[in-house]
């Protein structure tokens, strides 16, 4: 469930087809995932899931798998 929702947000914000998104998709290799879009992505996930990330957490995210992990972890504490 969380997985799908995260991928939906990534697809929408980065404007990439849903099928291309895997947990391995990373900032280092995805052209659309530049530093500005990274902030947009984080904003969108925060809005969608009702969570707030710290600056350190934002910086630590390198791939879609990290996004899913953080969203899941944050969800458990709310």
């Amino acid at each position, binding site marked *: 469930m969380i997985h799908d929702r995260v991928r939906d947000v990534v697809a*929408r*914000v980065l*404007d990439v087809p849903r099928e291309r998104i895997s947990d391995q998709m990373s900032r280092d290799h995805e052209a659309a995932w530049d*530093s*500005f879009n990274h*902030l*947009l992505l984080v*904003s*969108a996930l925060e*809005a969608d899931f009702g969570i707030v*990330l*710290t*600056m350190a957490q*934002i*910086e630590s995210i390198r791939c879609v798998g990290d996004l899913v992990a953080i969203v899941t972890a944050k969800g458990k504490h709310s």
Partner: protein
Amino acid sequence: MPVTGPEGDLSAYIREAKAAERAPGADDWPRVRIWIAASSTVRGLREILLVKCQEARIRADVRLGGYGQVAQELLDPASGLYAADPTLIIVFQDVADTGFAPSGLVTTGTDDDRRRWADDTADGLARMADAATAHSRANVLLHNLRVPAYSPLGILESKQAFGSVEAVRTVNDRLRDRYKSDPRVFVFDFDAFCSRVGKDDLADPRMEYLADARLRFEVLPRLCDEYLAYVLPLAGRARKCLVLDLDDTLWGGVVGEDGFEGIRVGPAGEGRPFWDFQRHLKALALRGVVLAICSRNNPEDALAVIRHHPGMVLREEDFAAVRINWQDKATNLVDLSRELRLGLDAFVLVDDNHVNRHMVREALPEVLVVDLPDDPARYVSALRQWRVFDTLQLTGEDTERGRFYADQKRREAAARTIGSLDTYLASLGTVVRIERVTDATVARTAQLTQKTNQFNLTTRRYSEAEIRELSGDPARLAVCARVTDRFGDNGITGVLIVDTDGLTWRIDTFLLSCRVIGRRVEDAMLSYLVAEARRQGARTLTGEFIPTAKNAPAADCFRNAGFTMLSDEAGRTVWSYDIARPFVPPSHVTLLPAQRT
């Protein structure tokens, strides 16, 4: 289609912007080229502004300057900024990027250090704005500085001889004073904008640290709305006429049901919000916005209130046109458009009734229908958000516009009683005074080239800088026509720009404000031009008619004046006149030619 979704959904704007770039709008939309030179990260601003311009039916080319390159791009005449030939340059230097350091200048600096900082910063910003006007034709929107809401000195900040908050205010005061009378540089009160948004909540500190983004994404669309107030008049898209409903809009109650006594409007009690609303409308009228009434009512009932109710602020003479009948609003608006000779895209409709609003939005999409709040207590605060009437310069004609329409009503009343058109024209006592364009008339002349669509032979748009340049060019003749008649002064309502290099003079621009169409002012201007050409030894006069969606009224101008058609390519015609032939000026017009130099 307006972008839907939460204001914070910047990615939606980015997608819309991509779509806007692929389908930039119709060919006849006005074009603007905007360059944003910002000292911090404002990515997103470009996309949002593009989308908002498209919603306003403007084809915008919006570019963001290089990161940290504000001074370089503005001070170097060979920079990419100037190569892009923008029409509007937005200079956005954030106070945080001016050496305003909390542990330096603010606390450990001396008063002299801060004075020096204020001088240097004000001078630096002015130098960039002045370079922009020197090296381009653009108008410049110069952000002032956000005055900090926080000082480490706390309550003792206000006791400093020259503290840091005062230093920033000083920069802003200097900029304001320096550019008050500058026609091209507008100081954008960014400090006021930040206060409205809330200085405590301007930035997301994480984004500021990670990306130097000093404004939250959600704030960017609001900033673009502010920018749009400058872009709309630049593109000639400013609206001109406010059409008002009566019942529960200008006054509380329905006159047809509650009667004259039951109407609520006045400085005390229930009618106060409506009274206040009228005062604000009156202020708009004083700066040149035209007011009109469109109401479904018995005329006698409604006019009785307008004429005699003691609580009314607006009276009959404040309205340029009145439609009080039982017809539907859309038909009435089209009638008003014809009577006032304004396109529907110049209208704003204010009506409390949701059904009426929806109907007009559907039937006449060019009309801007405002969402008047349901609670009259909120009418004034809604009015304050209407930024569609801004013009770039308040000319004498703007403030006189309301008076012009009142004069025009008298002219029309006269026309109804006088017999034939010729008798009417003769009775007007029209005087056309031709003047060379000077500093005093540059603004109005440029405004006319930008706004005139109907009687405009070639629809060439010129900025004030361009008009100024043209008027000083010895190979060109730039004149304007001031038209007065028995009922009043219409102001400057005609422009003629001619290339006079050689034996053939070429008419580049020839236009008339629609106020003075239909009485052969154009023939008077042409007779002046023929005489002037003859005096200076030219042999031939040529002119062209470039058809647009709106300028059919001008198509036969040259034919009617006795010119010979040289060519006709899909409606685009070229004409010539042999100066040796006499040109008979219209008899009912008194022509006062320009002083000979």
